[in-house]
């Protein structure tokens, strides 16, 4: 989908839709078992940012990283999640995965 100078692919649209849903859940006080809504919102912003900066060819690696980060949010606090995400991206670069 093209919006002005920006092109959004399906995954980005789903992420934006998810951000809307999570925001609604926070607003109305709905609870998602095992997930913290604030952490989820933070992760979605991170994912959108990374997705926007990475070329589409690396989508698969990004998906694996996103799932790991999502499930680590059960155990880790916000700062640790951001650290994990950034360190993994740097390591991906060093190992020439991306």
């Amino acid at each position, binding site marked *: 989908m093209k919006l002005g100078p920006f092109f959004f692919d399906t995954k980005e649209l789903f992420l934006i839709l998810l951000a809307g849903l999570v925001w609604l859940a926070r607003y109305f006080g709905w609870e998602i078992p095992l997930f913290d809504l604030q952490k989820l919102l933070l992760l979605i912003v991170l994912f959108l940012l990374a997705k926007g900066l990475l070329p589409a060819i690396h989508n698969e690696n990004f998906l694996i*990283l996103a799932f790991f980060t999502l499930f680590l949010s*059960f155990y*880790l606090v916000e700062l640790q999640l951001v650290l994990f995400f950034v*360190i*993994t991206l740097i*390591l991906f670069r060093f190992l020439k995965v991306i």
Partner: protein
Amino acid sequence: MIKMKKNIKIFTAIFISILVTVLLSNYLFLNGTTSINQAGLANLVKNIQTLAKLPFNWLTRNNKKNELAHTPSLRPTLIPTINQDQSSSIAPSLIPTNTYLSPIPSLITPVNATPTIGQDAKITQIAHGVYSIQQGNVTFFRVNKSANAYYKEITLTNGTKVLFFNYE
């Protein structure tokens, strides 16, 4: 084969990042906030210095002479040391004026003043197995074990409150 090699790289990177994240945040940060834990940082530097000084002799593997290597106190620890004065790891503004953090539990004789959770202090679970102890809006430490068994608040005879953390 190429695909497998790539997947191995991805999972290695993820595994290393988990380790680095946990180590970094244990040493450098408090409660998952962005405030730098000075004592933790000092402890990290001290541990690295200690490790660098250890007389390991890998070539001859003559470890009998290396008594220092087996001294338990020289082993690196993940627990940041906290001084009894208030110039410790936590920013002074976060410490209530009449509260001290006890560095060595054995120095303080426990009294029968163990509070129940939610009575004298509010204990919140931050993440699985990680708890934050708060009074009012002030967060001043966390414990890494079950909160019930590892937290005590002791009031000394002069009225000073001591927060007692029983690490294991």
